[in-house]
Structure formats: C-alpha cells, structure tokens
C-alpha cells in the first residue's frame, strides 16, 4: 500500500500570466478545453448552415434575414442562389467533419482526459500540443475567411473532386480564391492533426503510471490511441494530396487534370493528370477519417455504459481488439466510395468484401454494449441516456451501410439521400451523441460544477426524437432516387417527395433549437452549477481520483499506482459497489 507514495513528489505550479495560462497554454487540460470550444463554435456554425440548406430546399423563395449582409452576391435580399447553396453545403461538411467530429472527441476530450486516465502529469510533448491547437485554429480561421471574400466560399463539396476544384474560377463561382483557401485550411488542419497524433501515441506508450498496463487502460484511452494511429497514417496522405491539388491550381502542374478539357468554351492547359488519383488519395484518408470520428465515441459510450449500469464492461479484451480490427480494416475499404467512379469493377468488388468485413467488429461492439447493460442496475443520468442513444443511432446508421457496401445496390443508391441518412446517423449523430455523453459525464471534472440534469434530459429527448425525424426519412428519399447536392427539386419525379422534405426541415429547425438548451446549460452550469465532488458518478477510473477540477499537474506530484481493471463495478464483497483503479482493495477472485 505504501507503494502509492514511493515516487518523489514533484509538484508543478501553473504559470501566473493570463496569456501563458489560458491562451498559449502548455497545460493539456486548457488545450483540451480550447479544442472543445473551437469545436463548439464550429458545430453551431455548421448547424446554422444546415438550417439554411434545409430552409432553401423547401422554401426557396424565403428571404432569410441578415444573410445578404454576410453574402450580398450569394444571397441577394436573403435569397440563396444555387452556387451559394453549394457553398453552404461545402462549408457545412468541412466544418462538421474536420472541425467538429475530428476535433472535439479526440483533441478535446482526449487531450483533457488521456493523461489523467493513464496517470500522467501532462501530454508527452506539451509544446507540440500547443502548436497543434494553434495550427488547427489557423486552419479554422482560413476556412471561415472564405465567407468574407468577394467570390464567396468554394462550391466543390467537402470532398472537392477535381477537375472542378483544380482548374480555378473558370469552373464556377467560389472556385477561385475560395477553393485555394479551402485547400490551405485543410492542409493546415492535417499538420495540426499529425502533431496531435504523434503526441497521443507517445503519451499512451510512454507515460502510463505504474500498474497501468495497456490492458488496464479505460476503453476511452484505447479509442484515443487507435484513433491517433489512424490520424497519423491518414492525415499524412491527405496533406500530400492537398499539396498536389494546390500545385495543380497555382503551380501549373497536372496531377489531377487530364488533357483535352474544355470548360466554358475555354481549352484547359493541363495534361496527363487523373481525377481518380485524387479520389483514391482523398478516400484513403476519408475512410479512416470516418473511424477517427466515431472510435472516441465508442470509447466514451463503453466507459459510460459500464459506469451507469454499475457493471464491468462486457468483454473488455474483445472491445479493445475490435477497436484494433476496425482501425486496421479502415485502411482497406476506401474504394467503396468509388464503386461508380470508373475504377475497375473487380477492384470495387474486393473493396466491398472488406467493407462487409468491417461490419463484423462494429457488430461485436454493439453486442458487447447490450451485454454490458444486461443484468445491470441502470442509473438514468443524462450522460447514460446519450450513451444508450449512441448505441441506438449507431445500429440504425450502421445497418444502412450494409446496403451501400454492396456494389450492385450502391449503383442505385450512390449519391442519393440514402447515403446522407447513413453517414449522418452512423458517424455524425452517433459521434455527437458521444460528445454530449462525454460532456454531461466529464463536465464536473472539467469545470468543477455539475450540469443541470433536468435541462440535460429535456435536451436528450428533443435531440433523440429529433435526429430520427431528420435522418430516417433520408433513407426513403434515397430509395425514391432523390440525388444529393441538388439546390432545387424542379424535376417531376422529385416533387412528390416535397412533403417529406418539409417534415425534415421542420424537424431540423426544432432539433437545432433544442441545442440552445444545451448551450444555456453548459454556460450557466459553468458559473452557477452545483459544486462537483471529486467522484460524483461513483466511477472507477483515475480522473475521479483527483479533485474537480484537477490541479495544474493533475496528481500534485503523487503519481497513482494502478491495481485494477478499469471497470470494476458491482463488485460483491467490496466496501462500496465499485473499486477504483488505484484502490489497493483486493477483489475476490470469484468474480472472474
């Protein structure tokens, strides 16, 4: 027992100055919060863009107040022009995928909690950590700046396929400076993510405290670790791809543009490039990216389900191995985005087999989540509701993937709303449910106060019902053949679908409005919430063994020693119904 104190105590003080403490901070907890608020700004901006998208689709003649001030060219008198619609969806996708889904679950929560959960004082490279945040911040600033340039934001979508994205403003509005800035923004984001990934990997491998073997890490740490490896391998490729695309635009090279093109009656002076090369490079990043978005959500869901079901996680090792399997397989499936791209159909079929295979570890995780709550004693906190909601939307969204993974079915469903419904549920909504669960769960530790549970539950019910009303109908639209990225439905066959679109728009407006409850709860609780105790949820992992909020160096120089697996809940003979990881208490062998 005395082992816990064998380390020499090195207590570190926080820097005194405001700038070094809150702006250019080296403290992983401050940087984690910085990432969190960057994502919060991005998610609300992205959500407002989605409102504009939805409003324009069903009420194309609506004059949207104030929009003409932001974009006199794109939305004169508040009327959204077709090209501005494409700008909105491009920025919506880019903000959400990069600056929300990649940022909050990994860089936000991961930064704050990885070091504490493995018993470390900070991340391995604090200066690199600060640099990765500020590079990411610069990336966001560059992206947002495209709203304010004369030509408007780019219109090529978050996937920015060349030649549309490679040949400059001849191919359309927004494809001049706006597209160049988009590429610079994403390249910067890649740099920030690469630095972050290095830091996460080094921290996980090198800074675990005594007794914290890899197989004793909370599943959150496993998910951040695997996500960091995916980030390291995939953002490197996207960075290269962005460099090549930028060179095609400004350096006269032709990586992605073949010869003989005529756009707007102008002969394009490129030769020898391949549009499919970009698609391969982009999706080599893009598919692991989907898992970068969702793995941390899986980690936090496992963490929270076990805590509030008061039961050990079902199949801990299988959960860790399935994260690894998903991580590995995620590099073998990118071609399923390209079944109809002109890629060899034999190659396409091979990709489809791997894609079906990646459904297996995802299914295993679902079974284990159900196994975790089976026979439990569920405490219905808001965090738990969102974790259960995660399982529900992940299953729903995941199953529609089994359709899209099959080339003959994708030949019909590709680029329809079926795809939009699928990925919004499985990686968008599910990941956001993971973030909400994480916020309600960890808020006491991050800010030292409790969030309001009544408002939290109200927020959950509105959001849970709302997202199904928005995204489930998209599958029906897709089956009816409704193409995505259309700014107006003038075609005869699409007109009968309008009532469904109207329903979705109203659901989106209401669900979005419900997020204001969350925003209010977040900021109100930060200052007025009830003071949080050290371990309000009676949880087992190390973040609950330090004060709320934790001191500057987390453990005041006393590194903990870990004796137990991370999810020892419902232990029969223990003093309480749970045993913390750093508790020297002995657990009777009968449990295993």
């Amino acid at each position, binding site marked *: 027992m005395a082992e816990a104190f064998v380390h020499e105590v090195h207590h570190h003080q926080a820097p005194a100055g405001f700038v070094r403490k809150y702006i250019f901070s080296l403290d992983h907890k401050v940087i984690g919060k910085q990432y969190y608020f960057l994502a919060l700004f991005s998610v609300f901006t992205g959500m407002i863009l989605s409102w504009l998208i939805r409003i324009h689709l069903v009420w194309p003649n609506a004059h949207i107040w104030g929009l003409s001030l932001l974009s006199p060219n794109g939305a004169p008198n508040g009327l959204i022009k077709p090209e501005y619609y*494409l700008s909105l969806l491009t920025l919506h996708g880019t903000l959400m995928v990069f600056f929300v889904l990649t940022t909050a679950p990994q860089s936000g929560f991961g930064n704050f909690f990885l070091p504490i959960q493995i018993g470390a004082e900070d991340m391995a490279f604090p200066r690199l950590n600060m640099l990765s945040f500020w590079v990411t911040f610069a990336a966001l600033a560059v992206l947002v700046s495209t709203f304010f340039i004369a030509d408007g934001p780019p219109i090529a979508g978050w996937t920015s396929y060349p030649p*549309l994205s490679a040949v400059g403003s001849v191919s359309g509005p927004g494809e001049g400076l706006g597209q160049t800035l988009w590429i610079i923004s994403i390249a910067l984001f890649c740099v920030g993510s690469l630095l972050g990934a290095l830091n996460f990997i080094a921290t996980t491998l090198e800074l675990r405290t005594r007794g914290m073997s890899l197989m004793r890490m909370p599943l959150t740490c496993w998910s951040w670790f695997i996500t960091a490896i995916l980030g390291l391998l995939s953002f490197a490729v996207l960075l290269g791809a962005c460099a090549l695309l930028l060179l095609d635009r400004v350096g006269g090279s032709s990586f992605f543009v073949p010869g003989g093109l005529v*756009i707007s009656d102008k002969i394009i002076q490129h030769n020898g490039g391949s549009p499919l090369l970009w698609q391969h490079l982009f999706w080599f990043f893009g598919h692991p990216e989907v898992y970068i978005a969702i793995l941390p959500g899986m980690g936090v869901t496992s963490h929270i389900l076990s805590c509030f079901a008061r039961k*050990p996680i*079902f199949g*801990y090792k299988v959960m860790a191995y399935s994260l690894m399997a998903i991580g590995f397989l995620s590099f073998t499936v990118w071609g399923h985005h390209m079944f109809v791209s002109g890629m060899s159909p034999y190659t396409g079929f091979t990709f489809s087999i791997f894609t079906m295979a990646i459904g297996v570890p995802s299914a295993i995780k679902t079974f284990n989540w159900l196994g975790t709550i089976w026979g439990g*004693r569920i405490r219905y906190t808001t965090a738990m509701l969102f974790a259960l909601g995660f399982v529900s939307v992940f299953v729903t969204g995941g199953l529609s993937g089994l359709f899209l993974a099959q080339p003959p079915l994708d*030949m019909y469903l590709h680029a329809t709303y079926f795809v939009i419904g699928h990925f919004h549920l499985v990686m968008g909504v599910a990941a956001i449910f993971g973030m909400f669960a994480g916020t309600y769960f960890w808020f006491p530790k991050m800010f030292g106060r409790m969030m309001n549970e009544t408002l939290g539950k109200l927020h959950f019910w509105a959001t849970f019902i709302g997202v199904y009303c928005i995204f489930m109908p998209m599958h029906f639209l897709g089956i009816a053949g409704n*193409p995505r990225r259309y700014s107006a439905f003038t075609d005869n066959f699409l007109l009968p679908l309008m009532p469904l679109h109207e329903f979705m728009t109203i659901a989106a407006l209401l669900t979005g409005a419900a997020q204001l409850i969350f925003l209010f709860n977040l900021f109100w609780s930060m200052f007025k919430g009830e003071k949080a105790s050290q371990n309000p949820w009676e949880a087992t992992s190390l973040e609950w063994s330090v004060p709320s909020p934790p001191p500057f160096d987390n453990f005041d120089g006393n590194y903990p020693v870990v004796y137990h697996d991370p999810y020892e809940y419902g*232990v029969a003979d223990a003093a309480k119904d749970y045993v913390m990881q750093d508790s020297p208490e002995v657990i009777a062998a009968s449990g295993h």
Partner: protein
Amino acid sequence: MGLALALVIAAFTGISVYIFWAHTWWFPPDISVHGPAMDRQFNLTLVICGIIFVLAQLGLAWFAWKYRDRGDHRKVIYSHGNNKLEATWTTAAAILFIGLNLMGYKSWADTHFTGAAPNALTIQVQGQQFYWYFRYPGPDGKFGPTHVDLVDDAAGNFYGLDRVHDLDAKDDIVTATLGIPVNRPIQLILRSKDVTHSFSVRELRIKQDTVPGMEIPIHFTATEEALKHNGGRYEIACSQLCGMGHYRMRGFVQVMTEADFEKWLQAQAASQ
C-alpha cells in the same frame, strides 16, 4: 425513464418498419433487364437488416426498461464477458455480412464483368456543365475523331467534330435526347468534356460517373416495361457535383419500339 426510453425506441422502430413494409416511398418502376436481380438483392438485404434492426433496437429497449435502477439495491450480474458468446456472434456476423455480399456478386458481374453483347447499339454520352449530349455513329458505324480546338457550344459543335475533313464524322448524329430501341442491348461510352459528372437513370437502375480523360463503357437493355410508363421518357439526373448548375443538369432517355427508333434517328440525322 427506462420505460420512456424503451417506448420511444420501440415507437420509431415500429414506424420505420411500417414505412419500409408499406412502400410509402419506394423505387420507381424498373425498366431494365438487369434491374430485377438488383431489386431482389435489395429486398434480401432489407429483410436481413430489418431483422437485425428490430432485434437490436427492441433488445436495447427491453434492457433499458428491465434493468433500470429500481432503488432496491439488487445485485448486478457481475460478469466480464463470455468468450463462447463472443465467438458465436463474431462468426455469425462474419458469415451473414460476407455471405450477403457474395449473393450480390452475380448481379454486379453481369453488368460489370462482361462486355456488351456483340449486336449492341453503341452510343457516346458526353456530360458537360450542365447538359448531356449523345452521339450515334451513323450508317458507317464509326465515330469520327474529336478536336478540342473545334469545340464550339454556340455553333452546336459540342464534341468538336470536323464534318468537312473527317469522313467518319460526316454522318455522326449528335442529339440532346438519348433515344434507344426497346429490347436491344445498348452500350454507352461515357465521357466528360469538363469536370466529373454522373450518368444516372433511376428506372434503368444505372449510375456511372463520367470522368474527364476516361471513356467508360456501360451496357443495359430496356424492357417492354419501359414503354408502359411516362410515354417511355425517363430522366437522366446528374449525380456528381459538377458546379453551380448541377441540380438542373437533366437529360432524357426516350425508349421506343425498333421502328419508331429508326424513324427518330433518321429525323435526327436530317437535322444535323
């Protein structure tokens, strides 16, 4: 709270299943020879996914209600997992998912691993911002070469043909509608003039990107069913973001009897 969650999950599961079951929003009619196999594969996948969906959601709902904390301090089932169960559901999921994919193999192979029939009528399709144009080889059966520098949309020379000097181009027929005869194999050679587009006809169950720098062949046969709906006229909707006018990049397929097709083609030839 557990009951409320269980009821909400059960409710949307029921509503979703009903809408799929009732075909409230469903596929348009199928007018191709290869389409029914795809539709069958879709229905098979729907049944399997539907069963998993209902079992998983209702299982979640049931557990959420049954295992709620009733404040009675009952003991939880202290379990770290079960390797036999893990092995069982891993094997079952692998067989089911990969097996399902392999069952769709033939449908994909028939349309993509074999070429068009030798007697197929070959037509070139060109996508460009934001129109579709079609080229028939004319009586000589040969497409004339294209010249980038001769492309002139205002003069109607969308392909850049030199009808004066190129013999093969002289009788080429360029149209704005894709006229095809029923029951005859059709081969389309897809190309793009500027950026990537996607040739997609819902009723033909076909979608294929048109990629700059590539000529991509696809093939299909329209069935008699095609003549029974919309006067044989079906929309070609661009399915790859191609610029500001993407949403209005529409063309039409007109399916005709063989005799009507010949008449139509002659009329088109006369108007070149």
